[in-house]
């Protein structure tokens, strides 16, 4: 059985989510995506704000899964942590499993969720022409992500 690459699936998920929510500009409305997930994902995604930890996707005994996020984190860090937790939730959906998203948890989950979070929150189709030459601080502010994430994205693009 052939398996699509994780990068391709992240591209596809980000494109579909941005289209579903009609997103045309930065920053990507991640909070709204989690509060009002696509109809078939309402049992797999949600958002619950707490006052501890960072962000974690969990499916309680009720069966209604949600991302628990620390509302006291700075906004860029909170958004990035939510996107990474969202990826974990997407991996557990019927569609995610059928497509070949990795089973979770696994040893590569940090790198996998980083890939998805960067693809969604720094979607190239929403960035202005020449974004590759922005300063990390400017790119981070534009996308609403932590500066080290913007630096990593710029480094990846420069190396490709």
């Amino acid at each position, binding site marked *: *059985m*052939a*398996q*699509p*690459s994780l990068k*391709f*699936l992240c*591209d*596809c*998920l*980000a*494109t*579909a*989510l941005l*289209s*579903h929510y009609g997103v045309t500009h930065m920053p990507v409305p991640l909070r709204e995506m989690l509060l009002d997930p*696509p*109809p*078939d*994902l309402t049992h797999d995604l949600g958002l619950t704000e707490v006052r501890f930890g960072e962000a974690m996707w969990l499916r309680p005994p009720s069966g209604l899964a949600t991302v628990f996020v620390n509302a006291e984190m700075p906004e860029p860090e909170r958004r990035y942590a939510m996107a990474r937790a969202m990826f974990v939730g*997407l991996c557990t*959906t*019927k*569609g*995610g499993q*059928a*497509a*070949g*998203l990795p089973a979770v948890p696994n040893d590569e989950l940090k790198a996998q969720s980083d890939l998805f979070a960067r693809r969604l929150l720094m979607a190239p*189709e929403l960035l202005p022409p020449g974004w590759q030459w922005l300063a990390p601080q400017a790119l981070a502010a534009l996308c609403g992500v932590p500066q080290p994430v913007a630096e990593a994205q710029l480094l990846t693009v420069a190396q490709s």
Partner: protein
Amino acid sequence: MSVKGLNALVGQACISDLFRTGLMNGRRAELIRWPEFDLEPDEARALLAIKADTFADFAAAVEHLVAQRESHAARTEGPFVVSLRWPNPASMGAYLSQHR
């Protein structure tokens, strides 16, 4: 559209059970004509020709199709490579040779 449309198609199948089921069970020709995918006729034909037992197989085949399109686009839209050549040792002249 092209690559974005193909990505959107697979992504839609990831987030919609009904769409994914239809794509794999007889409604593919109808679903790939959704205007938001904006697929070209040759892309639609390629999608209809995919034989896949599972959705993962289908997604892998679409990824292959995307890679082919990106490779083709790079060949047709990429920068010209220009090299300087000396016609022969006896000549001081030079000419430009253009490659794609």
